[in-house]
C-alpha cells in the first residue's frame, strides 16, 4: 500500500469531502495561500477558491462564531484553529454555543461543523503552543472528539467528522504531520466510537491516544523482548468512547495503563481508568495506572520539556512493575 504523511492524509480527506459536498468550506487564519504554518492545506485554495478556503483575520472567537452560524444554516464548515492552545479563546462559541444548540433547541437546530486543531509537546514551542487540551472539550456534552494516531486514522476520521451532524473536534499531533503511514488510495471512512486493537497481547493492556499509541507500541516492543506480552488499544475517538473494546481488553489482560498527552490530573487517563475500575474491577490484578503529561505548564528548555511527556521507556517501566505485582503508588 502507498504511504503518505499525516499532513497529506488530512489534505486528501478535505479535498475529497469538498468535491463531494459543496456545503463544506474551510475557515481560519492563513488557510488559503499559506496553507497553514504546517502546510497541511497546501493546494486546496487553488482547487476550491477563496470562497471555500476562507482566510480570516486573527480573531478566533469571531471565525469560530461565524462557523457556528453557517453550520446552523446548512453549511459544513471545517474550522482551522492553528494551535490547540487557542481553544481557550473560543470556548464560548464552542462549548456554550456549538455544543449546546442541538440540545437547547430540543433537537431542532443542528451544528454540523468540524474544528481541526492540534496537540503535542516536545516541539520547543513553550507553554502556549504545546498543550494537549482534548480533555477540556471531551468534558462538554454535545461535542465529539477524535484523536487520530496515524495518517490512516487522520484521513478516515476526518471524512467521518465532516459527514457527522454534530460539532466534532479533531486533534492532530503536530509532531506527526510529516510521519508516513500506509493509507489506501480508495475511499474509506473510520466510524466514530470504534477502538482499534493495534497489537494483541495477554499480560497487560496499554491504552494510548493520538501519538501515545506509538509510545505504547514502542513500549510493547521493549516488553516483548523481556517476555511480557502487551496489548495496545487505540480508542480513536474519546467521545464517543468504545468502552466495550477497552473493557474486553482489560478483562483479558487484567492489567491496564492508560497513556495520554493531556495533563494527568482530571484528564482522559483518569476517565478511562475510572471506567475500567468501575466495570472490570473483579478482573483486575493491579490498579489501573494513568500516565499523562506532567502537571506543569510545558517548559521551553529541551532538558525540561522532554521529561513532561510519557515515553516508551517510562511506560515499559510501569508495565514491568504492574506485571511483577508490585504495588504502585503515585509519587
Amino acid at each position: 500500500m502507498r504511504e503518505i504523511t499525516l499532513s497529506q492524509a488530512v489534505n486528501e480527506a478535505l479535498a475529497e469531502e469538498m468535491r463531494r459536498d459543496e456545503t463544506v468550506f474551510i475557515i481560519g487564519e492563513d488557510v488559503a495561500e499559506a496553507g497553514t504554518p504546517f502546510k497541511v492545506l497546501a493546494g486546496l485554495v487553488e482547487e476550491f477558491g477563496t470562497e471555500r478556503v476562507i482566510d480570516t483575520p486573527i480573531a478566533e472567537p469571531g471565525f469560530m462564531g461565524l462557523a457556528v452560524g453557517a453550520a446552523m444554516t446548512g453549511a459544513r464548515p471545517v474550522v482551522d484553529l492553528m494551535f490547540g492552545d487557542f481553544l481557550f479563546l473560543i470556548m464560548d462559541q464552542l462549548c456554550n454555543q456549538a455544543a449546546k444548540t442541538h440540545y437547547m433547541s430540543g433537537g431542532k437546530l443542528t451544528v454540523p461543523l468540524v474544528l481541526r486543531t492540534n496537540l503535542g509537546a516536545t516541539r520547543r514551542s513553550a507553554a502556549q503552543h504545546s498543550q494537549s487540551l482534548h480533555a477540556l472539550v471531551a468534558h462538554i456534552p454535545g461535542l465529539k472528539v477524535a484523536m487520530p494516531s496515524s495518517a490512516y486514522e487522520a484521513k478516515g476520521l476526518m471524512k467521518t467528522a465532516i459527514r457527522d451532524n454534530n460539532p466534532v473536534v479533531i486533534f492532530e499531533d503536530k509532531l506527526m504531520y510529516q510521519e508516513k503511514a500506509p493509507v489506501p488510495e480508495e475511499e474509506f471512512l473510520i466510524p466514530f466510537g470504534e477502538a482499534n486493537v493495534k497489537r494483541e497481547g495477554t499480560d497487560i493492556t496499554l491504552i494510548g491516544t493520538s501519538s501515545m499509541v506509538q509510545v505504547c507500541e514502542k513500549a510493547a516492543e521493549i516488553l516483548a523482548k523481556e517476555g511480557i506480552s502487551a496489548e495496545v488499544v487505540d480508542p480513536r475517538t474519546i467521545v464517543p468512547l468504545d468502552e466495550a473494546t477497552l473493557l474486553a481488553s482489560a478483562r483479558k489482560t487484567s492489567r491496564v495503563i492508560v497513556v495520554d498527552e493531556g495533563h494527568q490530573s482530571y484528564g482522559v487517563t483518569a476517565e478511562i481508568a475510572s471506567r475500567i475500575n468501575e466495570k472490570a474491577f473483579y478482573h483486575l490484578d493491579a490498579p489501573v495506572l494513568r500516565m499523562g503529561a506532567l502537571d506543569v505548564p510545558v517548559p521551553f528548555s529541551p532538558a525540561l520539556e522532554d521529561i513532561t511527556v510519557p515515553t516508551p521507556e517510562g511506560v515499559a517501566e510501569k508495565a514491568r512493575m504492574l506485571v511483577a505485582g508490585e504495588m504502585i503508588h503515585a509519587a
Partner: protein
Amino acid sequence: MAKAKTNTEDYMRMYRQMVRIRTFEDNANQLYLSAKMPGLTHMYSGEEAVAVGICEALTDDDRITSTHRGHGHCVAKGANFKEMFCELLGKEEGYCRGKGGSMHIADQSHGNLGANAIVGGSMGIATGAALRAKLQKKDDVTVCFFGDGATAQGLLYEVMNMAALWKLPVIYACENNGYSEYTKTEEIAAGSITARAEAFGIEAHQVDGQDVLAVNALTQKLVARARKGEGPFFIELMTYRYHGHHVGDINREYYRTKDEEKDWKDNRDPIIRFRAWLVDQGIASEEEIEAMNAEIKEDASAAVEYALAAKYPDVSEVDMHVYTDITHACA
C-alpha cells in the same frame, strides 16, 4: 387604493404584534409573581417597536438571532403563544421541548435561530448565517439583536470586521435601553456606540426605538440594500425597558428613578403612541383597537391555561438531543 389597503393591513399587523408582545410579557410576569414559572425571565415590555419595526421588514427566509431578553423578537418573528408559554414553563410542547426555557427559544420555521443567554453570544452566529447566505448566493438577510451592554464584548468587533471586509448581509441591531443589567449605559460605554461600527466602515444609524414606523422605514431600506450586497449595517435603537434586568429585579431605585420610568411609560410608550396615530389617521377606531386588544388578551390567557395544564417532558428525554445520532447519550 390597493396600496392604501396594504398599508392599513401592515399598520394593523404592527400594532397587533406590539400588543401581543406586551400581553405575552404581562402574562409571563404574572406567572413569575405567582410562582408558577420555573426560574427567571427578562421582560421586553417597552421595547416592542424595535422588534416589530425590524421583523416586519423581514421574511421567513430572513434570519434573526436573539438575546436573553428575547420574547419580543420571538413573537415579532412569528412565534405562537402556546408553544412559547409551554417553553417558559418547561413543557414538552414548548418550542424546545422544555429544554431551553425563556432564554433559548428558537423557532426555525420563522427564521429565528434562537435566543442566547450569553450577552453578545449570538453575534458570531448571525454573521455566520449571513456568510452562509452570501456563499449560497441567496439574498437572505440576518438581523443580529443585542443590547447596549453587549457592545462591551470583544466578539462584536471581531465579527463586524469580517462582515465589513466581506460585505455580508447582516444588520447589527443594538437595542440601547439605557441599562447594562443594573448599570447605566454611560458608565459602561465610552464614546459613541454608532462610531464603533463606523470605525469598520459600516454605515450606522441611530433611530427612535419607540417609533415603530421610523424603525420599520429605516429597516426596510437597509434590508433592501443588504439584499443587493451593500451591507453590513448597524442600527442603534434608542429604547427603554419598563421592568428590571429580570422579573426579580424589583427594587431598582439604586440605579434609576421611578420618575424616569414613569416619564418613559407616560410619554414615550410605543404602543400608546402608535395607537394614537392609527386613530388620528383614521386607520382604526378606538373600538376596533379595543376589540383587538381584548382578543389578544384572551388568546394569551388561553395559551397560559393550556401551558399550565400541559405535560412535562418524559424523564427519558433528559439525555436525548445531546447528539443528533445517539438517541440516549447516557445509555
